[in-house]
C-alpha cells in the first residue's frame, strides 16, 4: 500500500467504505492473526508431549497401545472434511445456498465422526490402563489430543451455526466470506492434526 498515492487512497476510501490498507478484510486478518497465535499454543503442547512421551513411570505408554490403523482412518475422515469445506465455500461463491448447506452439514458430520473416533480411542485407552493421571506421557497425550478435540468441537459449533444461519436466509452468497473465515479455522485445525498425528503416531518412540 505504500505505492498507493494519498489521493488514490482517499478516492478509494470515499467510494468503498470497506477498503482496508492491506486489502484483506478486518475479520479475515483477525482470523489469520488468531490462527498464528494458535500455532504457539499447539507448539507448546506438542513440545510437552515430545518431552514426556517415553516417561511412563513404570506404567503403560500411549505408544504401547494405540491402534495406528484406526486413527489413520479417522484422520483421513478429518482431512476429507477440508475438501467438503472448500466445496461449501465454492457453492456459496456461486450463490448456490442449498449446496452450501449440504456441504456444511457433510463437513460437520465428518468432523463429528472424527470426534466420535477420539471418544472411542480415549475410552479404550482408559480400559487398557492409561488414565489421565497414570504418568506424564498419558497426561501430555490426553492434553494435546484433547485440546485438538475441543478445537474440532468448537469448529462443529461454528459449522452448525452457519448451517442454521444459512437455513434462515441470514447467510447468503453476498457474505460468503463468513464461510471462508470459518473455513480458515477448520483447515487450520486439520493441518494441526497432521502435525499431531505425525508426532504421536508416526514418529517411532526409541
Amino acid at each position, binding site marked *: 500500500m505504500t505505492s498507493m*498515492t*494519498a*489521493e488514490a*487512497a*482517499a478516492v478509494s*476510501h*470515499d*467510494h468503498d*467504505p*470497506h477498503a*482496508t*490498507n492491506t486489502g*484483506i*478484510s*478486518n*475479520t479475515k*486478518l*483477525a*482470523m489469520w*492473526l*488468531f490462527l498464528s*497465535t*494458535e500455532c*504457539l*499454543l499447539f*507448539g*507448546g*503442547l506438542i513440545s*510437552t508431549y515430545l518431552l*514426556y512421551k517415553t516417561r*511412563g*513411570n513404570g506404567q503403560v505408554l500411549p505408544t504401547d497401545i494405540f491402534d495406528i490403523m484406526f486413527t489413520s482412518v479417522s484422520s483421513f475422515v478429518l482431512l476429507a472434511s477440508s475438501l467438503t469445506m472448500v466445496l461449501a465455500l465454492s457453492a456459496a461463491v456461486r450463490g448456490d445456498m442449498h449446496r452450501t448447506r449440504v456441504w456444511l452439514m457433510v463437513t460437520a458430520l465428518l468432523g463429528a465422526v472424527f470426534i466420535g473416533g477420539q471418544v472411542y480411542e480415549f475410552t479404550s485407552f482408559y480400559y487398557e490402563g492409561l488414565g*489421565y*493421571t*497414570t*504418568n*506424564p506421557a498419558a*497426561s*501430555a497425550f490426553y*492434553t494435546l489430543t484433547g485440546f485438538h478435540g*475441543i*478445537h474440532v468441537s*468448537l469448529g462443529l*459449533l*461454528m*459449522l452448525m*451455526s*452457519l448451517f*442454521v*444461519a444459512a437455513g434462515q436466509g*441470514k*447467510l*447468503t452468497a*453476498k*457474505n460468503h*466470506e*463468513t464461510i471462508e*473465515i*470459518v473455513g480458515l*479455522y477448520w483447515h487450520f485445525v486439520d493441518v494441526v492434526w497432521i502435525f499431531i498425528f505425525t508426532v504421536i503416531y508416526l514418529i517411532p518412540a526409541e
Partner: protein
Amino acid sequence: MAITEEPLALTSGETFAERPLGVLTRPQPKGTWRDWLSSVDHKKIGIMYGVAAMFFFLVGGAEALLIRTQLAFPDQGFLSAEVYNQIFTMHGVTMIFLFVMPLAAAFANYLIPLQIGARDVAFPRLNALSFWVWLSGAIFLNTSWIVGGGGADCGWFCYAPNSGVTFSPTNGVDFYAIGLLIAGIASLVSAVNLIVTVLNMRAPGMTLFRMPVLTWMLLVTQFLLAFALPVITVALFLLIFDRLFDSQFFDPAAGADPLLWQHLFWIFGHPEVYIIILPSFGIISEVIPAFSRKPIFGYTFMVFSGIAIGFMGWGVWAHHMFVSGIGPISVAAFSLATMFIAVPTGVKILNWLATMWGGQLRFTTAMLFAVGTVAMFTIGGLSGVTHSLAPADTQQTDTYYIVAHFHYVIFGGGVLGLFAGIYFWWPKVFGHFLNEKRGRLHFWSMLVGFNLTFGPMHVLGLQGMSRRIDTYSAGFGFEFWNLVSTIGSYLLGLSVLYFLYNVWRSKKEAVNLPAPGPDPWDARSLEWSVPSPTPEHNFDVIPVIESQDDWWFRKYSIEDDGSVVRVASVEEAAQKGDATGVHLPSPSFWPLVLAVGLPLIGYGLIFNLWLCVIGGLLTGGAMYAWALEPVDDPDAGHGHDDHGHDDHGDDDHGDDGHGDDDDPVAVAADSEGEA
C-alpha cells in the same frame, strides 16, 4: 472526567430501526454512568483501563510497602513467612499484569486510532470485551485473599514443583493460574484487535513508515503479546490440570520435569519484559521530540531497533535459568544472545540523546519524566548486561542485585515513561493540564524515592542478601541499606499519593484556567490536530497524510536555508470537532456480560462445578446474543458525512480474536446487518 460530561450529541439523537430480532436491541447512550458499561468507544475504554490500572497500582504499592516494612529492621515478625510469600507474589503479579500492562493498554487504546487517523479500533466491541475480561480476571485474582485462603505464594514466576498442591495447599495458586488465564484472553483479544487496526485502518497516506514511533512500539508490543501469551496459556493450563485434576506434568516423583515450567514460563516471561518496556519507549519517543522542538533522531533506526528487540526478545529466555542446570552450551548461547540484545536498546538511548542534542529543550513535567526514564533505564540496562555474563550471574542470581536490576528496568524504564505519557496526554484526554509545579515536585520526589528504594538493593545483593527471604539476622551488614530502602519506599508511596492529589486539584483548578486547546505542546502527531478533549468521533474529516509528522508540517514549513517558518496557527490548522452525523458503532452490554461469566467458570473449577455451568451459560449466551444483536446502522445508505473508517467499526462481529470462542453466527449477523 471531562469526557463523560460531553453530550453524546452524535449518536444520542438517533432512533434505531426496528430489526426482526426485536428482543435484542443495541443500548443507546443516555449520558449517565451506564454509558461506560456499554461503551465501545476506544477513548472511554482507554480511560477505564487507566483508572483501573491506577487502582491496582495502589494495591500493588501497598503490598510493596508491607514488604519494605517487614524488612526495615532485622529479625522482625511484622509479617509471618507464609503471609510474606503471598505478599511478594501478589505484589509482582499485580504490578506486572494489573498495573503496567493495562496502563500501557490505556495508551494503546486511546492513542493508536488517533495517531493513525482512524475513528475507532477495528473491532470496537471486542475492545470493550478486552477491558471487561481483563478487569474480571484482575478482580478474580485478588479475591483469593478473601475466598482462596490467601494469595498465591509461589512468586510471580511460580516455579514447579513449589506451585503444586503439596507445597502450596491453599487455593492461591489456582486463583493465580485461572486469573492469569482470564487476563491472558483479554490481552490476546486486544493484541489481535490492535494489530488489525494498525495494519488495516490507517488514514489515506499514512504508510507504515509515516506512523509515529509510539504506534510502532505499541504494534511490536501487540505482536509480542499475541505470540507470548499462548505459551503461558499452555503452562497455566498444565499447572491447573496438575492441581485440579492430578495430571503429572510437574511432579518429579512421577518422572516429570519441573524445568518444563521454567522454559514455558520464560519463553513468555522474557518477551513480557519487552511488552512492559516498549510502550514506555514509544511514549518518550513522542515526548522528547516535542520538548526538544526537533524531529526524532533516526526515525528508521528507532523503528527497526524496536522491531529488532521484538525479535531478539524471543532468543534470550534461558538467561533467567543460568543456574537451573541447562548445560554449558545453552548457557553460552543465551549469554551471547543477551549481550546482543543490548545493542538495539543502546541505539534507542543514543537516538533519544541525539534528539535532545542541540534542541530547544523545555523541561516540562512530561519531559522530566522522559529524561528520567532514559537515565534510570540506562542504569537498569547496564546492570542487566552484568547478568548476561553467566559466571557473574551465578553469583547475582536470587540476590537483591536482581531485584534492583528489574526494578530499575520496569519502574525506572517502564513506569516513569508511562508517567511521562500521563502528563503529556492529560490535556488531550481530559481537556485541562495537570499542574506543572506540583508535577515537578511529584517527579523529583518519585525519582529520589525510587533511587533510595532500589539503589541500595544493588549493594545488598552484592553483599549476598537473598531475595524472597521474609527477614534477615542482624550482624551481616544488611541493616543500614535495608532501612534506607524502606525510607525510600515510603517516599515513593507519598509521591504516588501526591500525584493523585495533583490529579484532583488540577481538575478543580481547571475551571479558572484557559483551556489547553488542541495542541498545547506544539507537538507532532495527529492526535494534536483535534480538539481537547478528543471529540467522540475523533476526526471531522479523516486527514490525508503527506509526510511523517504530518501535523507538524501543517503548522510549519522548512525553508531552503533550513529555517523553520510557521505557516498556520494551531487554530487554523486544527479540526473543529463539530462534525455531525458521523456514524459511530453502537454501544453494547454483551462484552460485559461475557466477561462476567469467565470468573464464574474459574470459581466453579475451584469450588463447585455447578458454577461452571452458570458461568458457561452466561458466556456462551452472551456470545450468541453478541452475534445476533443488530448492527444498528440507522444511517446506512444515507446521511453519512464521511464514509471513512468508522464503517469498519461495524465489522466487529467476527470475534475470532481469542481463545476458543469463535462464533460464526457473529459474522453472519454482521453481514446481515450491513446488507
